[in-house]
């Protein structure tokens, strides 16, 4: 065999698996047909956050007049913005290449396809390996009525290249993380943005209150949001794209005109064309590869991780699964054993959650008690000039066990570290409530939400 381990795909899942495998002494290769870093570094997590930061700077500069700071005419060099974003991507993907070299990981360039259970064709070479990890990720799901041309109709990849000038009027179809993040980017860049969502709330998987709170704040910022709404199709006319929108409940239809449509209705696993049938790796109807807690597929020495194995399609889930697979292959007793997979919408405010929503906790039969702390009562939030949001805590009334934390707040993703650790440590609400939190910080809102579960928050009335 050429390698102890061949990883197919160098996205976050794949490169984490490869580096951990190399750290544990395995002779490792990675086959990648595109750029190392996968969707996340090249056209996902990272470039979106860069654009969000630029947009946020525009937004905050406008609010600076609240404290007497005003600026003359703002100018945005869009080529420079795109270049800056691309530079960050290059730096990070270059970093992954450097890490491959330093960890003595062979980078094979080309599309990979199984020849047999231990042999993979990569470009025009055949490679053999004792173990193989499939980390081929996902791609945008299509919406037949809105075929992507990356000009008028774009997916997330097209939306990452900011056009000059920015679109006048944009429709985002789908109010998940991707749709909302781009909505905020373009809203801050000066586009009039409408977001529609088929489900009855934005970020359908989120806690209902958190979803509502985020929607309220985004609307205040000028983003139009319509839930329980679908887009049926469009007509290209001289004044733009005439899109037919339909109210899902009433069936009422109307036409609205946009310059651009962003299709952000989810992603689908990339498991076709890998020759999986030939080697006997089982794939679900929807294209997800089935795995156990060790990330093994139906063929024990073939593993699969990341977006290609299922939801939530998030980079840190892929990373963790990558580490688990590599460790199992190296003979460690590792398994995918997590209490909660955090998720974040990186808008301002950020929606950051981990663990059970209130509805989920009730469904599972917990006697639920809730703690809430509004950012409007936080001194730190006031000094930051950003008081939209709250921290909501879901707990089990009988045991005091913390079940979920739902944060709508500036820096929400930073605060989520504490919540995630609390869940993994099986912390009770009391554990959080007894822990000193520095003053004045946004993190105190987590403390006060915990105190509010016990009706003992200090800065609000506990009703």
């Amino acid at each position, binding site marked *: 065999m050429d390698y102890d381990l061949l990883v197919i795909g160098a996205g976050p899942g794949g490169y984490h698996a490869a580096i951990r495998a190399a750290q544990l002494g395995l002779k490792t290769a990675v086959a990648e047909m595109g750029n190392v870093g996968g969707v996340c570094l090249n056209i996902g997590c990272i470039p979106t956050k860069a654009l969000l930061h630029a947009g946020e700077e525009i937004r905050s500069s406008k609010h600076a007049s609240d404290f007497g700071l005003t600026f003359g005419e703002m100018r945005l060099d869009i080529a420079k913005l795109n270049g800056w974003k691309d530079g960050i991507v290059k730096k990070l993907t270059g970093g992954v290449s450097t890490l491959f070299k330093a960890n003595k990981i062979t980078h094979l360039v080309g599309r990979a396809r199984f020849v047999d259970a231990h042999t993979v064709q990569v470009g025009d070479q055949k490679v053999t390996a004792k173990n193989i990890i499939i980390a081929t990720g996902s791609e945008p799901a299509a919406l037949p009525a809105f075929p992507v041309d990356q000009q008028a109709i774009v997916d997330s990849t097209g939306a990452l290249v900011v056009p000059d000038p920015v679109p006048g009027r944009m429709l985002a179809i789908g109010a998940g993380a991707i749709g909302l993040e781009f909505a905020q980017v373009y809203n801050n860049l000066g586009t009039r943005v409408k977001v529609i969502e088929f489900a009855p709330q934005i970020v359908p998987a989120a806690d209902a209150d958190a979803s509502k709170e985020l929607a309220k704040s985004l609307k205040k910022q000028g983003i139009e949001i319509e839930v329980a709404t679908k887009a049926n199709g469009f007509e290209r006319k001289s004044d733009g794209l005439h899109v037919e929108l339909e109210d899902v409940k009433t069936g009422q239809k109307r036409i609205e005109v946009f310059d651009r449509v962003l299709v952000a209705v989810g992603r689908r696993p990339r498991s076709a064309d890998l020759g999986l049938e030939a080697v006997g790796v089982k794939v679900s109807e929807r294209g997800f590869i089935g795995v156990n807690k060790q990330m093994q597929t139906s063929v024990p020495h073939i593993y699969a991780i990341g977006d290609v194995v299922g939801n939530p399609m998030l980079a840190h889930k892929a990373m963790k699964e990558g580490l688990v697979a590599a460790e199992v292959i190296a003979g460690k007793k590792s398994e995918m054993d997590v209490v909660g997979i955090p998720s974040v919408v990186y808008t301002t405010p950020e929606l950051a959650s981990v663990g059970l929503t209130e509805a989920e906790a009730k469904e599972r039969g917990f006697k639920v008690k809730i703690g809430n702390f509004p950012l409007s009562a936080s001194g730190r939030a006031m000094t930051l000039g950003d008081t939209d949001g709250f921290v909501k805590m879901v707990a089990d009334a009988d045991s005091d066990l913390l079940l979920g934390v739902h944060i709508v707040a500036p820096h929400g993703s930073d605060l989520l570290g504490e919540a995630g650790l609390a869940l993994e440590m099986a912390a*009770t609400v*009391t554990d959080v409530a*007894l822990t000193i939190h520095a003053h004045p910080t946004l993190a105190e809102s987590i403390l006060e939400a915990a105190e509010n579960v016990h009706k003992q928050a200090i800065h609000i009335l506990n009703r």
Partner: protein
Amino acid sequence: EAARSGRASTNRYGRVLAVPAARQLARELGVPLEEIAGSGPNGRIRVSDVQAYAQRGESAAAQ
């Protein structure tokens, strides 16, 4: 009394390893944390360890 005087002072951490809620419960129940062997890593004491210790004490007292 010798046992009581303490793992906390003689153990290598300079404190009993216990989660905040367990420390609080031990205070409420009047249970000496130093005498509890916690079930977590490094003998870390959880709420359930304190409850179990307190129950043992009660059943011992009942006999």
